[in-house]
């Protein structure tokens, strides 16, 4: 297997929100590695911290949120050059001055948000909004920026580009607006794009189109993608590797084929089994008992233990660490992983 080049290394992110209801322990030591050119999907249910992970890395948390611990190391040479950093090694994102961070959010990383109606400015034409990114991040004239903007509009397959350029967001449909947001995120040619539920607001047939486009553009511009979604179907369709999140922790990481075929964390197993599929028909669905915990008072130890069929005493006391369990890059954090694997193998034998 060829050696993959690391683009970003995230470790031990701890993010808290200070709210009226108390301190929300949104992230409790999130870590993962992102390779160049790959699509990493972060999946999980509402409130598991997948969006907060993106916002913590981009340093775009609202005023009540704070990242207390952790490291984000960004290995992009192009961004380093633009920032004028000459010393060896990666960029330490969390310790950059805000001035430099403005540049990173452009050349380095960009964000596609869920709802294109709220992320586009309603009083400017979409053309102006694309040009704003171009003139801020690249030293080009207004005419050149306009040509470039038209090219970007064409690249997201909106035609005629001239006409779309002059339109306001409300004159476009949801799918078209999301494509404009995608073109804005590509404008400064970043090394990494975060797509936070990019198609949740869209219908199935429009979603298919946007996902395809995102995938093609990623290949064309050779960027990496962190896809944040709760839709396991989209994960199976678009990602290379998957990180499963639960209550502020990444509990399992694997390539998508392994993850769907042989999920090892009890939460991942439950999650996959509880989705109704059109490829098979069951009378009753498997489900995970209970509901997602409130992160103001998260459970002690492993945060999944109150809902976990494998839970033992140690799970209540200590948070397990993520470890390489099987084969190439299948990481799981679970105290009782041996039990889980034993059960899986027993099931397999029973089937044979």
């Amino acid at each position, binding site marked *: 297997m060829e050696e993959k080049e690391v683009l970003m290394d995230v470790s031990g992110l701890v993010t808290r929100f200070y709210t009226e209801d108390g301190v929300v322990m949104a992230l409790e030591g999130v870590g993962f590695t992102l390779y160049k050119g790959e699509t990493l999907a972060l999946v999980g249910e509402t409130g598991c911290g997948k969006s907060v992970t993106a916002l913590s890395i981009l340093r775009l948390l609202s005023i009540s949120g704070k990242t207390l611990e952790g490291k984000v190391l960004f290995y992009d040479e192009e961004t380093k050059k633009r920032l004028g950093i000459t010393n060896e090694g990666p960029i330490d994102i969390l310790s950059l001055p805000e001035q430099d961070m403005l540049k990173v959010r452009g050349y380095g990383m960009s964000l596609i948000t869920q709802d294109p109606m709220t992320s586009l400015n309603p009083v400017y034409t979409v053309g102006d909004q694309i040009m704003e990114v171009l003139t801020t991040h690249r030293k080009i004239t207004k005419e050149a920026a306009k040509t470039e903007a038209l090219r970007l509009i064409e690249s997201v397959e909106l035609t005629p580009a001239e006409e779309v350029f002059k339109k306001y967001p409300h004159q476009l449909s949801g799918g*078209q607006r999301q494509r404009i947001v995608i073109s804005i995120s590509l404008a400064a040619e970043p090394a990494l794009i975060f797509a936070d539920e990019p198609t949740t607001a869209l219908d199935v*047939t429009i979603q298919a189109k946007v996902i395809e486009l995102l995938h093609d553009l990623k290949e064309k511009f050779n960027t990496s993608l962190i896809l944040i979604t709760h839709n396991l*179907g989209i994960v199976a369709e678009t990602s290379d590797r998957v990180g499963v999140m639960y209550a502020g922790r990444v509990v399992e990481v694997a390539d998508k084929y392994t993850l769907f075929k042989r999920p090892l964390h009890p939460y991942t197993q439950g999650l996959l089994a509880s989705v109704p599929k059109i490829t098979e*028909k069951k009378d009753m669905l*498997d489900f995970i008992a209970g509901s997602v915990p409130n992160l103001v008072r998260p459970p002690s130890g492993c945060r999944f233990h109150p809902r976990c069929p494998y839970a033992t005493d140690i799970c209540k006391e200590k948070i397990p660490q993520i470890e390489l369990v099987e084969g190439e890059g299948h990481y799981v954090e679970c105290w009782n992983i041996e039990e889980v694997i034993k059960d899986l193998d027993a099931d397999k034998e029973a089937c044979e």
Partner: protein
Amino acid sequence: MTVPLLEVKDLYKYFTFQRGLLHRQTFSVRAVENVSFTLDRNKTLGVVGESGCGKTTLGKTIISLYRPDSGQILLHPDEKTTYDVATAQDEEMKAVRRIVQMVFQDPQSSLNPRWPVKNIIGEPLDILKLVSGRRERENMVLELMEEVGLKPEHINRYPHEFSGGQRQRIGIARALASNPDLVVLDEPTSAVDVSVQAQVLNLLKELQRTKNMAYLFISHDLGVVHHMSDEIAVQYLGQIVEQGPSDKVFSDPLHPYTKALLSALPVPDPEFEAHKRRIILEGTLPNAINPPPGCRFHTRCQEFLGEKCTKECPALIEVEKGHKVACWRYE
């Protein structure tokens, strides 16, 4: 032959509004157009379609939250009785309300935040005069709470004290209060998470079995509809374009729109995804105020036949036993 529980015949529902100078121009949104189907007791009919196709309007018209412009909605609670929901008044309407209930999409906005669970579930019991006396009412509410898996000690709690999944259970208990024969479920799980969704879907199946209810299950989630339904109707811009047994529609779709919809659906199975042939539809959903002439789908159709599709609207005809489609390809 026994009569079906519900018979919908040539149902139309337009929403009209005025616009322009002195409101002289009248527009109408064709939300439900020429819809007919039957539903047997104990069965589930799934209605799928994208946002704006009129599936929620169809559901609301059937429980008479909207009056249809024309058409019949015939309910046969037993062999001899027939009610037409479309024209029912006063006493008849009360009988209809007992027979047909609805569970709404968003439990946050469909439950009164100032009422404890006791009153939310008890209200239909009072209005339909199904209980006499406070003791009986409370017992009935407790029984319903137990049936949907809510703890009896939570009877005095308010909606905000429950999680999303539990709130949807309250909505289900309220719908069950009148012991209905038909329940319209409008996206009952779109506001809850996947792991909780499975709990709610299992509960609904369980209840259907024990109480012999028919469901009209409205959803945009094809996986969920496939799991829940015996039969499926695919709606596009107000019209039903394909209808048939659930397995048949999913394994052997006939209408080009159904084919595209199924191929666009991401399936949580990477190996299946890798071998799938995808049909990507061009363009967006046309406006229901001014829908395309002829077949509504012809502007986006990948199997477009020519002039015929643009001029005349195809009728829903039976191609195989129980499997109907509205497309010129099958005429």
